[in-house]
C-alpha cells in the first residue's frame, strides 16, 4: 500500500505491505489499518482510493499483487 501527504505522515511511512489471502474490499483493508492507526477514522469521509493507479472507491476489491493507494483530497495546481 502507498500513502501520500498527511496520510503518509499519519502512517509514518509512504509504503506498507499488507498480506491478503484473497479478494478483499478496500473497506475491509481500511478497517484493518484503522485498528492499528485509530486516527485514520477521520479520513474515511474524504479518503481517496486508487488501485493500480486508477481511482476506485471503498467498495472496490483488491487482490494479492494489486497496488492499493490511499490519500487525502488533492491540492495541486
Amino acid at each position, binding site marked *: 500500500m502507498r500513502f*501520500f501527504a*498527511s496520510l503518509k505522515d499519519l502512517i509514518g511511512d509512504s509504503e506498507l505491505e499488507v498480506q491478503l489471502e484473497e479478494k478483499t474490499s478496500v473497506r475491509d483493508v481500511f478497517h484493518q489499518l484503522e485498528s492499528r492507526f485509530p486516527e485514520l477514522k477521520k479520513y474515511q469521509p474524504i479518503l481517496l482510493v486508487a488501485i493500480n493507479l486508477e481511482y476506485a472507491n471503498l467498495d472496490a476489491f483488491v487482490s494479492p499483487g494489486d497496488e492499493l*493507494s490511499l*490519500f*487525502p483530497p488533492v*491540492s*495541486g495546481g
Partner: protein
Amino acid sequence: MIQIVESKIEREEIVKSVSSSESGAIVTFDGTVRNHARGKQVTHLHYEAFPEMAAKELEKIRAEAMDRWPLNGMAIVHRIGRMEIDESSVFIAVSAAHRQDAFEACRFAIDTLKTTVPIWKKEHYQDGEVWIEGYGE
C-alpha cells in the same frame, strides 16, 4: 507535453511546444506561489506528487480536452518539491484556431487538475506548516 518536473518551469519552451501555423490563439495559465493564504504569511511551499498516477491523470485531462474542443495542442507541466513565492507551480498552454476554444479548454484543464491529479501542497509559515487537502476556492 505532459511533465512533472522538479526544477523551474520554463514557460517559453512549453508555449513553443503547442504553437503551430494553424493556431490563431494560445492561452496559458500560470499558477504562482502567493505570499499569503488563509490569512497567514506564506514563506514557501512544498508540493508532493503520486508521480506515476499524476502523470496518468494529466494525460487524461489532455485527452479529454483535445476530444471536447478543436485544439491544436495542450501542454501541462506541474512542478513538485520546494517552491518560493512568485515561482510557478503549474503551467498550462493551449493552442487553437479560435480563442474561445483555447480559453475554455485551458480553464477546464486547471479546474480538473485541481480535483483529480494526485498532488498535494504543504504551506510553510513563519510558525509551522500545514498540508492543504482539498480545495475551497
